[in-house]
């Protein structure tokens, strides 16, 4: 913590805008709530897919996870608490709740089992949850950094990260820039992303030591 505090550019806080989202949603801002959902729905979805749920069960889980978060809004910890970032707390809470809800529908679909017959692989795994949360936070910060890119960068980076990636020839044709200037422009745009990401809290997310507790 001391190191981070001495480097203001890499301060150990959430994306300042993202850190205020829960408080704004609690105060009645639907837009802030929508941003929370946009930010973390990919993580919730990714956890659900590991349980191979039907669409019906997916809807059941989504409804109940977000309903429980709505109820939690008034009880969230203060953003400024030294116990770690609110974004991390929120992502962790959502990951644990999603996993619990997925287990509930999976177990209900299977029917009652004799005690002690719980099959392996249905218990929440703290290590996996930790990894999901870190990846979710990193992805959210990267998407926010992408959204902040100037118009000269967005289509280029978009084509570079498309799946499959576009060739320099295709990029040159689509964006009307010479092939030889793509490399330098790419480097400049990625530098912008590094700057935004540091400001948006990715420094902390990426710097989390394996097994380290941000609250420790």
């Amino acid at each position, binding site marked *: 913590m001391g190191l981070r505090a001495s480097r203001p550019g890499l301060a150990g806080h959430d994306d300042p805008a993202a850190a205020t989202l829960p408080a704004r949603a609690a105060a009645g801002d639907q837009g802030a709530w929508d941003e929370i959902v946009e930010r973390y*729905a990919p993580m919730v979805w990714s956890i659900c897919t590991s349980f191979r749920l039907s669409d019906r069960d997916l809807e059941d889980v989504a409804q109940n996870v977000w309903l429980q978060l709505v109820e939690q809004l008034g009880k969230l910890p203060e953003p400024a608490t030294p116990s770690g970032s609110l974004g991390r707390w929120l992502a962790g809470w959502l990951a644990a709740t999603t996993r619990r809800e997925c287990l509930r529908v999976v177990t209900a679909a299977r029917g009652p089992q004799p005690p002690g017959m719980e099959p392996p692989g249905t218990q929440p795994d703290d290590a996996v949850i930790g990894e999901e949360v870190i990846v979710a936070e990193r992805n959210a910060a990267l998407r926010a950094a992408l959204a902040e890119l100037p118009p000269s960068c967005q289509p280029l980076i978009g084509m570079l990260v498309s799946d499959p990636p576009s060739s320099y020839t295709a990029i040159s044709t689509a964006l009307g820039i010479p092939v030889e200037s793509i490399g330098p422009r790419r480097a400049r745009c990625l530098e912008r992303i590094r700057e935004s990401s540091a400001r948006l809290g990715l420094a902390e997310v990426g710097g989390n030591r394996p097994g380290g507790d941000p609250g420790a």
Partner: protein
Amino acid sequence: MLDGWGDEQLLTALGEAMKARRAVPSWFTETGKNAYAWHNIDAELAQLTYDSRTDTDAMAVARSGSETASIRALTFTSAHLSIELEVADGSLLGQIVPPQSGTLETHTKAGATTSPVDEAGFFALEPIPPGPFLLRFRTTDGAYVMTGWITL
């Protein structure tokens, strides 16, 4: 940490971040956004504490051995009361514990309907809502307790 990332590593991470978002169907995200309608509803959210499909307690074992093996029973518990539900012959029977009268709202995506709860705390819903539904009970002194979303 990101300072140490090479351009290729950063591009890969960006690609993964975008892919993770593209993977999410829009209805899934919309479901999350719609949940905000329950903000400031001023109802206590009761927890699902018993489901005959998952629980293995004596009650469930007893039921599974009887003719009513296929019966589905659920209990939602809040700090002040419980809402017990049982599916029987195409209707949903319910019991508020401790017994008390009040009003029960059944919310589905299509809207809400209201049913009375008698002094014994009993209510019946017929037919059973076809899709996901949520129950909100209003006590005679005006407090609300609601269940999570139920899919039978």
